[in-house]
């Protein structure tokens, strides 16, 4: 569904992603992990069009989308959940949902919002509350709910578990898994390695802007080297791993 090939991108003159490639097959959950500064978020932003790539190929269902604007990519069926501040905090929950349906007709909007309320009943009575007044976990859920209004086929998530209490992390990921069972593909950047390894079909490791490894979670766990370098486990009498790039 989504293909990134030899993508290079960054901010201004600073090249952060040096040569990254990955694929998200239809209906799959794909994770991106790696040390801080590896370019994971940058890559995600590039895929969604917030940053124009310096080089490389980005294709959605075979259609080249590199260089398109985020609102154009969104209309192709892709949703994006930012790491922080993705909501309109000064607007109400209801207005956030309405904005989620910006590209949808009036009639469909009503139906879609009702469908979202059905899936996330906690928002039904909180329409008038300011989005910023919700708890961290509720805000994350609202962002997901909002993204679902347009019935995307692919979601890009930037650290969905960031700054959340463990029970909310479980809730978020349970929600994501349920959505995936209904056919929604996902590309998830994560620092919380355990959470993503538990649900992903395939994981790409990014280090210093390049691919370092990719495989199934089982393959990652099986490799001592990968475990030591990226999964944060040390090997007993060995010295604690120094993650490259720190």
């Amino acid at each position, binding site marked *: 569904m989504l293909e990134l090939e030899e993508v290079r991108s960054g901010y201004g003159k600073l090249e952060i992603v040096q040569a990254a490639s990955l694929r998200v097959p239809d209906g799959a959950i794909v994770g991106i992990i790696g040390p801080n500064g590896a370019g994971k978020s940058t890559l995600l932003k590039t895929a969604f069009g*917030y940053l124009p790539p310096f080089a490389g190929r980005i294709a959605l269902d075979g259609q080249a989308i590199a260089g398109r604007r985020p609102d154009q990519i969104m209309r192709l069926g892709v949703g994006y959940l930012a790491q922080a501040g993705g909501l309109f905090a000064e607007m109400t929950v209801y207005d956030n949902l309405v*904005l989620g349906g*910006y590209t949808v007709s009036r009639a469909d909007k009503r139906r879609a919002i009702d469908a979202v309320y059905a899936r996330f009943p906690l928002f039904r009575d909180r329409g008038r509350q300011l989005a910023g007044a919700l708890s961290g976990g509720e805000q994350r859920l609202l962002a997901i709910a909002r993204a679902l209004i347009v019935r995307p086929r692919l979601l890009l998530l930037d650290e969905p578990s960031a700054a959340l209490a463990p029970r909310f992390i479980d809730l978020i990921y349970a929600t994501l898994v349920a959505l995936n069972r209904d056919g929604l593909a996902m590309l998830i950047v994560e620092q919380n390695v355990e959470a993503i390894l538990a649900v992903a079909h395939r994981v790409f490791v990014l280090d210093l802007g390049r691919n370092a490894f990719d495989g199934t979670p089982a393959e990652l766990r099986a490799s001592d080297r990968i475990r030591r370098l990226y999964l944060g486990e040390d090997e007993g009498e060995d010295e604690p791993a120094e993650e490259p790039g720190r």
Partner: protein
Amino acid sequence: MLESLLEFLIQGVVLGGLYALFAVGLSLIFGVLDVINVAHGEFFAVGGYLAFTAVVLLHLPGAAGVLGAAVGTFLLGLCVYPLLIAPLKRRLGGRPQGPLYLVLTLGLSTFLQSSLLAIAGGDYLRVPPQVSGILDLGVTAVSHQRLLVLGVAAGMLTALFAFLRFHPVGLAVRAVALNPDAAQAMGINLPRIFSLTLALGVALAGVGGALMAPLFNVYPAVGFPLTIKAFAITILGGMGNPVGALVASFLVSIAESLSVMVIPSQWQSLIAFAVMIVMLLVRPRGLLGRAVSR
């Protein structure tokens, strides 16, 4: 004493309508585009010239002049984002560099004002009032023309705020002002919203220019003193907050009007600037504004 107070109060309210037309547009543009439009006054002047053209040169009725000013400045405003701001944005690659945009709009201001001078000459052009007559309120008399300004201002600003509050595109405009990245993720076309907002903002000034033409006369630099005063007003109200700009417009206009009782009238304008400087030092986000950090 009370009579004078009432008189100046009324005059202040009437003046506030004009300030509001100006400052609300300026504040809206800043709130959505993060750009301070130094050239705002030039759209006011263009509005006056369009009214002059319609009424004096083409012998159309006064309302046509106002309508023409609105449409003309709107169309002119639509050109500003794609031709000037977008290219600068592209070059800067998203790094916020407020002062550079200020320099850009300063260049636009110089260009527009001197173009008007080149095209139309520097003479003060006279435009007949759209309405004549005076309303006698006992304590003071207010010309119908000034009341028209206040009335049109009230009408247009009500329409604007209703648009922002209730219309889907108005909601999109507010969304872009709050969080442009998230707005894009909702499928909102940023360049289009930017262009629309800018055009709307300057069209308000253009209408003001057409309505004030009979009172100020029309000449290239007619808008500039208002621009600077509008900066002061928007800072008082909170840059980027149109409601704040509305409130501040009347605060300033009434203060200016009342001040005539204690200081000579030519020093009136000092009030606005003194207020601006004090606000910037004490509370840069203004009375109702959002935090300065953006």
